[in-house]
């Protein structure tokens, strides 16, 4: 089985700073690391390969030339190959353009049966690229995977984490999964892996290599305009209804009618 893992190089800080003028991330002067959630995806890909006793794991990243460092860490952990998608034409991509570009690269790699991604990147926090890659490829996808139960030649059974429990899903291959941190404990890159990573040659694919539609990549292919960044609030409030049971029931019914749910 050929497994592709999409990883992103992110600023190594928990406090991401935003440029207030452009509403984009400030990257200058901040050391980079592999997006922590992507480490779980790399680990799970390696475990699937070990479970099956054969296969190839390819790590993939789109970014500036220094994103090769993130791919080197993936190699140090044990992935077989790594490809960097880097081209000035890719710059300024939103999630739509990024997903399109990554999907084209997965097609170019060829014979990929499974794509794994972290649930989201810690800088942008959108969680959109994984599912959008699957849509571009026309494959099924499942987000928030916490466990891979069975791996068949054409089907995989997974557990998807939800707010109140989990769903067990059988998914036909090829497919894309995004994983949560509950899925495993990522291995540390061993010394032999680190030495191998240092020497590894990482091919760089440009827009021309991918035969992409120039209108769908980089800033040109990015319709997203960031107006404001905020975390959606899910507020729950409780109100105690006093009185006898009959009075409480009547008051409750009135409230529910007022909310249009009864």
């Amino acid at each position, binding site marked *: 089985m050929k497994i592709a893992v999409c990883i992103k190089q992110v600023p190594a800080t928990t406090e991401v700073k935003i440029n207030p003028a452009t509403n984009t991330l400030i990257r200058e002067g901040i050391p980079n690391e592999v997006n922590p959630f992507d480490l779980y995806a790399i680990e799970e890909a390696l475990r699937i390969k070990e479970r099956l006793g054969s296969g190839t794991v390819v790590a993939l990243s789109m970014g500036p030339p220094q994103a090769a460092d993130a791919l080197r860490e993936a190699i140090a952990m044990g992935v077989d190959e790594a490809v960097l998608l880097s081209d000035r034409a890719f710059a300024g991509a939103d999630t739509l353009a990024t997903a399109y570009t990554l999907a084209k690269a997965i097609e170019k790699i060829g014979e990929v049966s499974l794509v794994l991604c972290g649930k989201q990147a810690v800088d942008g926090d959108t969680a959109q690229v994984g599912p959008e890659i699957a849509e571009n490829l026309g494959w099924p996808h499942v987000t928030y995977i916490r466990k891979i139960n069975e791996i068949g030649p054409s089907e995989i059974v997974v557990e998807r984490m939800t707010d109140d429990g989990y769903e067990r899903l059988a998914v036909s291959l090829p497919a894309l999964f995004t994983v949560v941190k509950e899925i495993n404990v990522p*291995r*540390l*890159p*061993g*010394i*032999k*892996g*680190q*030495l191998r990573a240092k020497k590894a040659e990482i091919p760089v694919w440009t827009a021309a290599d991918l035969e992409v539609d120039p209108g769908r990549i980089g800033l040109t292919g990015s319709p997203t305009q960031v107006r404001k960044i905020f975390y959606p609030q899910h507020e729950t409030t409780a109100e105690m209804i006093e009185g006898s049971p009959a009075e409480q029931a009547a008051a409750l019914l009135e409230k529910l009618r007022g909310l249009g749910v009864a």
Partner: protein
Amino acid sequence: MEYFLTEEQKMIKELAARIADERIKPVAAELDEKEEFPWEIMKVLAEADLCGVYIPQEYGGLGGGVFEQVLVVEELSRACSGVAVSYAATGLGAFPILMFGTEEQKKRYLPDIAAGKRLAAFALTEANAGSDAGAIETTAVRDGDYYILNGTKQWITNGGEAEIYPVIAMTDRSKGPRGATAFIVEKGTPGFSFGKKEKKMGIRASATRELIFTDCRIPKENVLGREGMGFIVAMKTLDRTRPGIGAQAIGIAQGALDVAVKYARERHQFGVPISSFQAIQHMLADMATQLEAARALVYATARMIDAGVKEFSKEAAMAKLFASDMAMKVTIDAVQILGGYGYMRDYPVEKMMRDAKITQIYEGTNQIQRNVIALELIKEYAGRK
């Protein structure tokens, strides 16, 4: 202090430090409390390729030497020296094979040790033979192509957990130390069993057991070196591993100093941090100075051994002696700086103080180290005109 490590040595040190901080520190108190062997951490060390740092590449190791092992042991000891000694004791079991093993023995055992698949342990000490290694009572009697081992080894680190045991036994008691022979005994050999797990003051994550040999038949191919060389095997092995005990000591002391400085800066008395008191400052200054001196001696000794110098008994003994006495003193002072908190198990320094004590005792008591140093010193001066 800058010790000018190579890029690969830096990589090894950083990875060991990361494992110490991320995987060992959070469980160190629990491992100590439960006296649980750290198998999970051993697996992490194996995956990180750290089990074979001192084993040649042709046997699956990284091709480093004593110095690389020292770097790993030091970092691990910073977090828990019970874990560190379990790692280091495999080295103590591997070095006799590295130094005296036949090509076949090396091929048979070293790749598994380097990969962390099997642990090793070294069996010299007995109830009546500690510092006086010549008093060994375990016997090995030749019987055709076999030797039959009888006797009991005591306080063997990694005993029961390890699978590969270089064991020293007497093949000819009339010859005294020259009648000792080293054998490789594998766990599972009929007639080879383990006694109870010892309850210790410190390094409680590590396993210490008796090895019991009852008519245990060992093929003659498992002799390490030659018959009668057992004492030399033991002494040469200990010379090589003593800097490792020094590394353990400097790791423990570094861990204690880290806690003490942090605490002194945070703890307020009389309205100011206690780090502003000269009484505390001078204690911290002495701790740091002694620690750095010990580290410099341990590193220099390890590098000297790896450079291929033939005679290093004296320096190895000095490194072990100085670093372990330093660790004892530094950990006692760390407990003192933390005061009542230092005495409580909620803080890590009381464990470090308990752990430090053994470094003055095992792999040759510090009294024996002084004997070694003095003997070498007198020999040196006797040779001068």
